[in-house]
């Protein structure tokens, strides 16, 4: 190796190290600070979702640290908490890998000295990362991870804001029962298509349980590998069993491929209900155009729900300034902002950074949460937010119409879905 190249490599390492220390030094320059760690997939297959979650927590912190008297959100009318303490975020990237998530959680607590962690989007990463917090008796706030298993572990320091795939499955089944009672439909047979991951597998298990407990028939269980390039055989399996209702747990591009393949094979169930972000992502809805119409799914937040949650708009403006391209909150990212706001309220209420007292307060109180659909957050033992709510929406013409439950509905559901040849 020539001396020149040796110098180039050495220079890169030195410059990079200096840049790194400069960045980490920003947080240390403040005096009255509370360090909070964020742990999201900032790179890897779901990096976009992770970056939105990170921006949502940043937006919440901006509201907490500065005075925004016009924003109707707790703590917005004051600067900081605990008489002038500012929250400083230390961000970490788990790349969607459980082992990286665990070691980054350890680093955030042990090296960076954060008070609590907010994360981690992927349920498979949240599990080991939150156990790091549990063993250290430190708080782990989880916004969006949906695996119901997370809040059934008997943990004390883990809190989750979002509804679980268990509650969503029950809501889906209740919706079908309601359709059968009110619309005169007679939907009896169910199928599930899901990605073969922690998220998909768990959603399918909860779906099966809810379907069978309601007395319906579970006729098709179809798994596929995420990132598949072809779903022909999976859709053929569904078509062969021809269930009335299909629940889908398909993320991102897989959701697009599933719908395109159903169109190619000229088949549709009468109703399709979907978990999580494939259906919820407005960019995916845009890419699918008319083909994505008449599908349904749960939505914790979308711009169409803004009239039910007026406090979201001003916070969303701050959020948009932190993400490129600027997009509205989605159901996942907004939960991370709620996690930050609830934690800050608990710290303020206790009046100190005593973890045990804050945990007790989190369990004992009902928290105002104007960024949540129900407007409240309260935790059951195990850490699940028992006030978590979501609506069932139906996508028509790029608009998510609220169809269930009735108190939130602004449109009648269109069932059965028009077949492909009936669509314009």
């Amino acid at each position, binding site marked *: *190796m020539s001396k020149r190249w040796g110098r180039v490599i050495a220079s*890169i390492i030195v410059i990079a190290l200096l840049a790194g220390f400069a960045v980490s030094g920003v947080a240390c320059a403040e005096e009255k600070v509370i360090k909070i760690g964020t742990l999201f997939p900032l790179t890897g297959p779901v990096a976009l979702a992770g970056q939105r979650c990170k921006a949502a927590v940043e937006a919440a912190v901006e509201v907490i640290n500065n005075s925004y008297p016009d924003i109707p959100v707790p703590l917005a009318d004051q600067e900081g908490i605990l008489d002038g303490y500012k929250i400083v975020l230390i961000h970490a990237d788990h790349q969607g890998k459980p082992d990286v998530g665990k070691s980054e959680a350890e680093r955030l607590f042990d090296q960076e000295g954060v008070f609590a962690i907010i994360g981690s989007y992927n349920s498979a990463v949240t599990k080991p990362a939150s156990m790091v917090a549990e063993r250290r008796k430190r708080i782990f706030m989880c916004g969006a991870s949906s695996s119901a298993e997370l809040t059934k572990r008997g943990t004390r320091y883990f809190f989750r804001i979002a509804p679980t795939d268990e509650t969503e499955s029950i809501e889906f089944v209740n919706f079908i029962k309601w359709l059968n009672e009110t619309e005169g439909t007679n939907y009896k047979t169910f199928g599930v298509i899901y990605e073969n991951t922690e998220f998909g597998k768990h959603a399918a298990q909860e779906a099966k349980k809810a379907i069978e407990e309601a007395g319906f028939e579970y006729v098709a269980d179809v798994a596929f590998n995420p990132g598949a390039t072809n779903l022909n055989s999976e859709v053929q399996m569904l078509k062969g069993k021809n269930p009335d209702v299909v629940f889908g747990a398909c993320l991102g591009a897989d959701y697009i491929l599933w719908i395109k393949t159903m169109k190619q094979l000229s088949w549709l169930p009468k109703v399709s209900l979907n978990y999580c972000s494939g259906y919820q992502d407005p960019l995916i809805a845009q890419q699918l155009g008319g083909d994505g119409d008449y599908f349904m799914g749960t939505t914790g937040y979308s711009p169409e729900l803004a009239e039910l949650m007026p406090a979201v708009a001003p916070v969303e403006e701050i959020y948009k300034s932190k993400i490129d391209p600027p997009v509205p909150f989605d159901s996942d990212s907004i939960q991370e902002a709620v996690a930050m706001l609830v934690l800050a309220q608990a710290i303020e209420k206790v009046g100190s950074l005593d973890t045990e007292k804050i945990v007790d307060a989190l369990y004992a109180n009902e928290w105002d949460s104007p960024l949540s659909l129900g407007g409240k957050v309260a935790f059951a033992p195990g850490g699940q937010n028992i006030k978590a709510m979501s609506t069932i929406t139906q996508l028509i013409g790029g608009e998510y119409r609220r169809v269930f439950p009735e108190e939130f509905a602004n449109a009648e559901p269109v069932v059965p879905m028009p077949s492909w040849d009936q669509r314009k």
Partner: protein
Amino acid sequence: MWYGVLLLIAVLPLIPGPLQSPFAQHVLVLTLLFACMSQAWNILGGYCGQVSFGHSVFFGIGAYGAGMAVVTYGLTPWPGAIIGALLAAIVSLIISYPCFRLKGHYFAIATFAIVEIFNRLFMVWYWVGGALGLDYPIIEEGWKNFMWFQTKTQYYYGAFGLFILIFSFVRWMEANKLGYYLKAVRDGQEAAEALGVNSTAVKLTAIAISAFLAALCGAFFVQYNLRVDPPMVMSLDMSMRFVLITILGGLGTFWGPLLGAAILIPLQEYSRAMWGGLGGGVDLIIFGILIVLIVTRQPKGVMGFINLLTTRFKATKGGDD
């Protein structure tokens, strides 16, 4: 030198200063573990010249052995680790026998496919936890269960034990018949066979030993992370780490895997710690650039660079004389 390095590794976490921090100790544990994993791969890929991208399968079988012993059967991880390692050796023999008929690049390509097959199989295999994986419960910490929650020191010395086992074996192998057979097959299979070396038996021996040791590393990995699922252990990404570290350090050399791990792992961990939170993969970009620069400027790895320096130093010294 060997005993000097052992002594240095033994006292490293005891040195006061920055190495006492939990994150530094985490980096030290990973460095030793990845040095062990890469040395296990080096037996087949470096000494025997059979480049395998399938070693994450054996690593994964070891991980699942320990994981299932603890999570599924409520035992200690020790019997699971041994059974997993033996199973990995048997599986390696079954899958490598047909693959060894293939030469050069074709063997490497076949091993790619094996990773995918096992990954898919474990994803849908309910008995091993499928896509949900296996999560460790909180149980008593200590050597019996080989898990600790507050400190990394015991993990470090556990990895050090593995290091002594694997590196001592390779050191013994280098000085004995097996090592010469492996190098003979690598340097010219036909020539080795002409001299009476049974190349198939040598290659099968190499992969069985290599798989056994890789599985022990997998068992350590799952005890360290307290969770296992197929993408964590049986993936091309994991296989590539074995290969990359060895090539960076020096393929087919005794110290190469340790040197490669000592450079790559701290670089990977510290770059992620410093820039990972910025998003956009700045850490991965810098990490990638450094690897490209090092590998393109010195294809024989760090050991090649050290040998070059040693030769120059000796030449200068000779000139002075």
